[in-house]
């Protein structure tokens, strides 16, 4: 038992994560070839605009379902909204925000772009504290808009005219996954400007600009889009009840800052927060790079239903970061009573 724990604590989690990302990328983007469909309400991006998709993201579901009159929610439609939401929550709490870090195909594409940037030796960008605070809010604004606009299309708010049908599934029209994921299967038909009305011209032009922003941003900043993702905002509402958790023991923290230094998104709260136990913030994608980089024993822990499955250890840190190639010493330590 202790040997298994030691093996896991010393393992290279980043490599494991890259492999899982590739597997799920293939399933979610190319799954349709083998008629695989994981679910219709996945808590991550899996775009149905990609004909070969292996699942459908929950956001398009909720936008279509909310496109209904108020009266409709009292009937069967209300029940289907509830069941869809419960399925989403059920799928979500198993892995908590790890859906973002390990499974999301859009996240995988961003990680690959990061690898490309490393090849070229281009320096990455980081937000400073003030920009971080002010840009954080955008994902909540996007989430609120994507929930309110479909309601506004079937119902009139405060006597104002109903929103035009051209805005149906408003977030999907702007989402970079709509253009990027089908392109991964060779289908470039989602790159177009629709001139049929002013609304469509604006929406499709914005979509193209957002796709361009996605590529440039992800090239220069690690996981650029995740900072603005409404799925991340929606997930955070339920993150507290997740079964997979990231926990910090504040007393053991030496304020070395290694955790926030390796964080792709650049969350400073992991290092600075010494009081709270549950430190998953709304931007966190639970990739656990922070746990790998923490050199203090038992300071950061990954827990699944209360059981610690991965923790920060000094031995693990040195195993992952140092190389003993030219030296004839090993990093492994013998298990002793104190472990």
């Amino acid at each position, binding site marked *: 038992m202790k040997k298994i724990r030691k093996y896991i604590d010393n393992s290279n989690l980043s490599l494991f994560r890259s492999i899982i990302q590739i597997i799920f990328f293939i399933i979610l983007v190319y799954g349709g070839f083998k008629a695989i469909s994981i679910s*219709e309400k996945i808590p991550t991006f899996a775009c149905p605009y990609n*004909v070969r998709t292996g699942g459908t993201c929950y956001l398009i579901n909720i936008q279509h379902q909310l496109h209904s009159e108020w009266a409709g929610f009292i009937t069967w439609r209300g029940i289907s909204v509830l069941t869809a939401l419960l399925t989403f929550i059920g799928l979500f709490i198993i892995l908590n925000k790890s859906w973002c870090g390990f499974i999301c195909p859009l996240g995988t594409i961003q990680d690959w772009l990061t690898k490309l940037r490393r090849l070229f030796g281009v320096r990455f960008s980081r937000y400073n504290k003030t920009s971080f605070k002010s840009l954080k809010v955008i994902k909540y604004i996007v989430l609120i808009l994507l929930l309110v606009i479909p309601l506004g299309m079937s119902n009139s708010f405060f006597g104002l005219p109903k929103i035009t049908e051209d805005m149906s599934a408003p977030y999907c029209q702007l989402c970079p996954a709509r253009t990027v994921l089908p392109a991964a299967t060779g289908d470039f038909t989602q790159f177009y*400007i629709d001139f049929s009305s002013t609304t469509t011209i604006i929406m499709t032009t914005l979509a*193209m*600009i957002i796709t*361009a922003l996605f590529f440039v941003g992800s090239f220069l900043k690690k996981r650029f889009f995740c900072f603005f993702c409404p799925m991340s905002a929606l997930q955070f509402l339920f993150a507290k009840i997740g079964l997979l958790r990231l926990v910090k023991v504040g007393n053991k923290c030496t304020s070395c800052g290694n955790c926030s230094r390796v964080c792709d998104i650049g969350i400073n709260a992991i290092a600075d927060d010494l009081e709270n136990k549950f430190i998953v913030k709304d931007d966190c994608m639970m990739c656990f790079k922070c746990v790998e980089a923490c050199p203090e024993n038992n300071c950061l822990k990954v827990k699944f239903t209360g059981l610690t499955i991965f923790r920060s250890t000094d031995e693990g840190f040195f195993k992952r970061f140092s190389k003993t190639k030219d030296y004839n010493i090993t990093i492994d330590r013998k298990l002793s009573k104190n472990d």
Partner: protein
Amino acid sequence: MIKSFFIVLCITIFSLSLEAQVFQTEWLCPYPQQHVKQHVKISGMQKYYAMPGKYGKEKFILWPAKGNSLTEVEYMDSLTVKKSQFYLFSPDREYEKYSLKNTKSGYAFLYDFGKEGYHNAYMINKYLIHDTLFIMISKAERLSHKCRNGHKDVQKKIEPLIYPNLIPFEMIRLRMKPGENYHFLLESGNHVTFKVLHRGKEVKGAEVTFTTNKDWHKTIITNKKGTATFQVPSDYFPSMGELKQKKVSYYLVKAKFTVALDSKDTNSQFKYICYTCTYPGEYIPSQSLYKSSFWAVIVIVVSVLIISIIVIISRSEKNKILSRL
């Protein structure tokens, strides 16, 4: 003398008119005639005509019709209807020998959209003239889909189904590549391929004609794979409103193939069997009339350039600090 000439003339005219009658195309018409338009309306994503039913449930409708062109269409009368055979197959290959309902809008196929996928409807008529048996098969494929039922197994469900044991001669529309899905509507400019099958086997040398409801037509002989490919024409300039509404135009594909019977079969009354199959469908004006990929690429390239310039300027300050590295 004059009497016999007159009789011969009558017989000729009669037989000719019979033939003329016979060679009028038979098909399952998906759109209503003028006088019944008030009873039906277009419904659903695929823009099929439907008749409002009890408790808000709609029933989708196909009228058996005949005529020489899509514009001169005549509904079949009750006499012919009683002689014909009708089948309706659900997407799960279950079928019923169907009997037409007499509705306010005439004799029609009426069916609910239960299961997701393509429903196949057939009308079979047989005529014997001289030594040729004419088997006229009218087919229609109708897609049933409601988004709320989800989008499971799309690739499997949209594959065309054939029933060689019951339907001897068929035509299928091959699905578009890359994947076609439930939200598919044929557009002007698309290439559409039809395959002709006789008892499940591909037929080479069948005559396939594509006609539209503006009387455009083209005939192709099927190749050795049994397929014929047409490019859907755009035969008028739609207004912006019609583009937005995706105003539907109709096409009809006819396939004709004659088989000579074995000389051994002396029992039969006929030496040849002439198969005809018709397949109607809808198409909309080409989306490329208002969707442009060219402009999209321009927007992307310009955005990338502008964003890169902004980002490089904002990074230059930190670059100055790190420049000595």
